[in-house]
């Protein structure tokens, strides 16, 4: 049992304890969950500190992963068809390690936000911890089958978390979210199976689900469907390109991209605050991580072929999301659309396949993980106080909630890319990478990066407009005096959570090397792998 497995299954274990405990200790559930998550944060911090970015470059070489754990899990002898080989295969490299830390921290914050949950505590916390396990699993799984299991395992608790503890239209949102994601992942399963029959393990000669084997062209069976040499065609499209597109769509739904984004505003708005935090803070990153780990690594030449389209989608997402955010009157929807806009930078950075671009995209994902969590947390604070989020219903909140306003200003300005916060570095380098792409590999035209800068301008527009409308001016509230009493300033628990997030955003903004150093070698390795083809 390596540290990684402990990290992954610790929440599950805590969840089981909660399920088993009688409901008379209802108040204790959250403390059990809190303890589990804190231990989890400590473990991931330990992993972070012991992670050597230069050594653990990962990507296609098992020996270069940290904390590798490989146990035969399902090993069926199918006679003439060979042997079904599914490993319990975990490991961390520079691409996944930052997300482990991100997940742990965001989970801690989400848990602190869960104090507001009042009904059915047992189910809530058990599902919450199950979700936690699934996410950590996704980020560390290196066997595609295991990856898929964890990937699907994420859906189920989320569906219930949204569907039971959500807002007014929760059923609609939950179903929409569930179907959207399932739509993508079902096709993903097809590709996984196709890959399975195309790839053999060099060591045993059997077919395998091992992702690392899939990254090496030598391991493909001659003439198999996804073999790079065979040039198979399906429906008139190269099979590998089709595989890439299918996988991309599966992950892009999670990212999300325009036009596959409409689940996001609904799901975010209807979900309870902690689930919004998890959705925005971690779930979206699963998409970006998947694109890097799976799409780009396994189908590199297809990634290069479709880079132009990826970049275009990125640009469209940036501008479209920002303009939509500008039109919102619901604060939470605004934040949701701003997420779409910010994740566009991720796609743009990935599409560039330059070190700057991919590092920028990684940084953007991490930074957005902290900042969007913070934004949703803040929105949640208002909502729990007065059960209203309409921007025109509030005015001059800075007078009655000074501390809260300070935090929201930090969050807004950090999100719109104020230097000193992580988002600035991230956005700047995603754009620089995208711009540089034409000089280095000629994938993206320069105008894309120039258009991308518009997103920065628009984000300033919608955030500042919101600030002006909601927080400045004389206090005038839709709910009158009653609201004024209900709108108390943030309490100690909320301050703790917000401070954690602010600190991370700030530290990463001032010392981005803390993150860049860890993932740099992996990013370079990934680019080397892509350029091999």
């Amino acid at each position, binding site marked *: 049992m390596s540290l990684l497995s402990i990290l992954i299954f610790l929440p599950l274990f805590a969840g089981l304890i909660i399920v088993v405990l009688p409901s008379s200790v209802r108040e204790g559930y959250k403390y059990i969950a809190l303890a589990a998550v804190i231990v989890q944060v400590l473990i991931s911090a330990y992993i972070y500190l012991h992670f050597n970015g230069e050594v653990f470059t990962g990507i296609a070489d098992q020996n270069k992963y940290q904390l590798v754990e490989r146990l035969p899990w399902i090993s069926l002898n199918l006679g003439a068809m060979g042997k079904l080989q599914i490993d319990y295969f975990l490991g961390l490299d520079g691409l996944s390690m930052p997300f482990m830390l991100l997940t742990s921290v965001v989970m801690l914050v989400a848990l602190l936000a869960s104090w507001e949950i009042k009904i059915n505590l047992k189910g809530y916390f058990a599902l919450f911890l199950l979700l936690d396990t699934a996410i950590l699993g996704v980020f560390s799984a290196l066997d595609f089958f295991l990856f898929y299991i964890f990937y699907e395992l994420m859906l189920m608790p989320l569906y219930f978390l949204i569907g039971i503890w959500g807002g007014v239209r929760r059923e609609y949102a939950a179903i929409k979210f569930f179907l959207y994601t399932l739509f993508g992942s079902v096709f993903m399963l097809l590709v996984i199976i196709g890959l399975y029959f195309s790839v053999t393990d060099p060591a045993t000669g059997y077919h395998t689900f091992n992702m690392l084997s899939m990254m090496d062209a030598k391991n493909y069976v001659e003439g198999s469907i996804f073999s790079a040499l065979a040039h198979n065609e399906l429906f008139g499209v190269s099979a590998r390109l089709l595989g890439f597109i299918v996988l991309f769509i599966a992950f892009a739904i999670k990212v999300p991209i325009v036009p596959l984004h409409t689940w996001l505003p609904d799901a975010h708005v209807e979900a309870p605050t902690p689930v919004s935090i998890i959705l925005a803070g971690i779930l979206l990153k699963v998409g970006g991580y998947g694109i890097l780990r799976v799409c780009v690594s396994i189908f590199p030449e297809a990634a290069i072929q479709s880079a132009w389209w990826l970049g275009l989608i990125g640009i469209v997402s940036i501008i479209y999301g920002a303009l*939509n955010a500008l*039109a919102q009157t619901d604060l939470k929807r605004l934040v949701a659309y701003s997420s779409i806009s910010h994740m566009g930078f991720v796609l743009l950075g990935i599409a560039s396949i330059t*070190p700057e671009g991919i590092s*920028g995209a990684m940084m953007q994902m991490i930074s957005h993980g902290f900042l969007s969590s913070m934004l949703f947390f803040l929105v949640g604070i208002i909502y729990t106080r007065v059960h209203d989020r309409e921007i025109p219903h509030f005015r001059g909140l800075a007078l009655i909630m000074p501390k809260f306003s300070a935090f929201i200003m930090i969050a807004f300005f950090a999100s719109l890319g104020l230097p000193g916060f992580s988002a600035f570095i991230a956005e*700047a380098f995603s754009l620089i990478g995208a711009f540089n792409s034409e000089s280095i590999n000629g994938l993206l035209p*320069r105008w894309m990066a120039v258009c991308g800068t518009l997103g*920065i301008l628009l984000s300033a*527009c919608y955030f500042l407009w919101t600030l002006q409308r909601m927080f400045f*001016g*004389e206090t005038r509230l839709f709910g009158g005096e009653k609201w004024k009493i209900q709108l108390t300033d943030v309490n100690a628990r909320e301050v703790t959570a917000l401070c954690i997030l602010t600190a991370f955003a700030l530290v990463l903004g001032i010392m981005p090397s803390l993150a860049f150093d860890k993932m740099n070698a992996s990013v370079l390795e990934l680019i080397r792998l892509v350029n091999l083809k």
Partner: protein
Amino acid sequence: MPLLTFFINVFIPGRFTRSGFFAIASIAISLLCSLLVFIAMWNEPFIHVQTNWFTIGSWSLDVGILLNNLSVLMLPLVSGIALLVHIYSTKYMQGDPYLHRYWAYLGLFCFSMLGLVIADNLLLIYMCWELVGFSSYLLIGFWFTRNVAVQANKKAFIMNRLGDIGFLTGIMIMFSQFQTLDIISLFGEKGLVSHAIVSEGIWISGMHHMPAGWLTFAGLAFFLGAVAKSAQFPLHTWLPDAMEGPTSVSSLIHAATMVAAGVFLLARIYPLFNDTVLVLIAATGAFTAFMAGTIALTQNDIKRILAFSTISQLGFMILAMGVGASASSLFHLGTHAFFKCLLFLGAGAIIHEMVHLKEKTGLEYDPQDIRNMGGLRKYMPVTFITMAIGSLALIAIPLTSGYLSKDAILIESFEWAEGKGGWYRLVPYSAMITSWLTAFYISRLIFKVFFGEFRLKDTVGLHHVHEAAPAMKYVLVVLSLFCLFPVFSLNPLLFEDAWVIQGFPQADSMTRINAFHTVVPAAVNLISVFLIYLCFSWYGSNKPAPDFSKTGLFKFSQHQWFFDKAYNTVFVAGVLGFSRFLYWFDLVIVDGIVNLFGAIGRGFARISDWFDRNIIDGLVNLIGYLAGKLGKLIRNFQTGRLQQYLVTMLLIILTLFIYKYYTAAI
């Protein structure tokens, strides 16, 4: 190492500055260090200290500080003015409930401004650049309960953001072309930019090349950044609105330092600009100067007049950059910083008094409207004298610092135009007209405020008005000293002797070879003096001044050339409308398609449900139904009556028997 102590001190203001004294102390230390650095470094080879910040790919970003003449000149300038404004603010902002916040914001501003000045890396400059914008945002919106103020700060930030986009684009181009953002290696004497060549429409630097259009584009992109920060046309509208902040802030940020950052940036990256861009820069500067000058003629808000005057003067600086007179431009930057700061602080002192008056008497009037003032000369003599000196410097009367710097710009622009001929001559002539406009509007301000009768004397007792508090008074005096010529040059008439000019390399030797050097200053000054007199006769006495307010030009000017309105209707409404449309699109079309799929899915589901229920389930139910019926039928036999059972048995046996019998027979 004075650098180290200096750097530490720069950071202090940003932190926990709850009391003004601490802020003043830290900024004073900054000033002291700046002065030390200045003395040590002026006209010395530059110092460039670097440290690794982070690494991406195989490229690592080094940041550090770069001290050359340009930055060491800016250092004491910024910190000196900042110190004076800090001292001034102790009195001016007294009693504000959020005072500690004010000091913190000021500290953040000073930090980022100083950082901007000494940064050696384009990315670092960009960071400080945005931080400057951010702290100005905070300070403009300091009175956040005032709706106008928060709208103004939003506008300022967004307009600056527009410039930032340009800056960022420039950075991207630089990085892509040269793989470094270091200023020395880019723009130094043997820098990459000067080595890059343009041949056959391709811009080549070492291994990298891109179409030559990108060189122009890079210049324009950086210039866009400067345009936004230095409030040039067409992005100038934020500056007048920014006057909603406290006056001390206006003087520090929007007159002396922040707006100069744009000019500073242009100076830093000067080698990048090609001819096309330079002409555009010059034209923009000239046009802005002229436009702002005309607008300033008709404004009535004292701060707005000064704001437009600032825009106009910044136009001069940009113009100077465009014509290649970067040294004069920076010189003007320095002199302008002092006299404009002085004017603003003087205006602040007046507004302070007017506000007090308003509070005492409880009357409703605008304390910033010069139509409400007049005759203040007798009550605020120090303010009057210092402001008069500042105005003279602004007009560029001999013996003031402004004379030196402005004449340098004018003369050099004339020389430049002479070299080009044609339409280029418009640039210096418009600049000259602008300097006459300057003379007119600033004297109008002075005469209206200080001469004549106090216009509210019927309702307000004048005895309430008195001189500004000592803290403010002495700051004004110090600043006015800096407006005089000896600080910058021992020769009051020849700008070439100024040490600031001599501190920078000049393209051509500064000899008084042609007539411009004598004709231009003379022409400017004679007409200026005439205009001042005209002003005095119109506004200085109690006689009613000629009324132009009905003419079209007056209205055009008073409404600031309708820029705000145009922007509001075209851009703001346009973008908002577009975004609403997109939201509608998102909600109706994109989501509609998704929901349509959902609906189609549900339709299919309903059909299959019907099929399932009626056909398949029907069959199943039929079987069940039949079984039930049969069961009922058979149930009827189970009467419990022995004899009936027997009959049944008999019948069955008989049936079997008959069956057997006949089948056997067959």
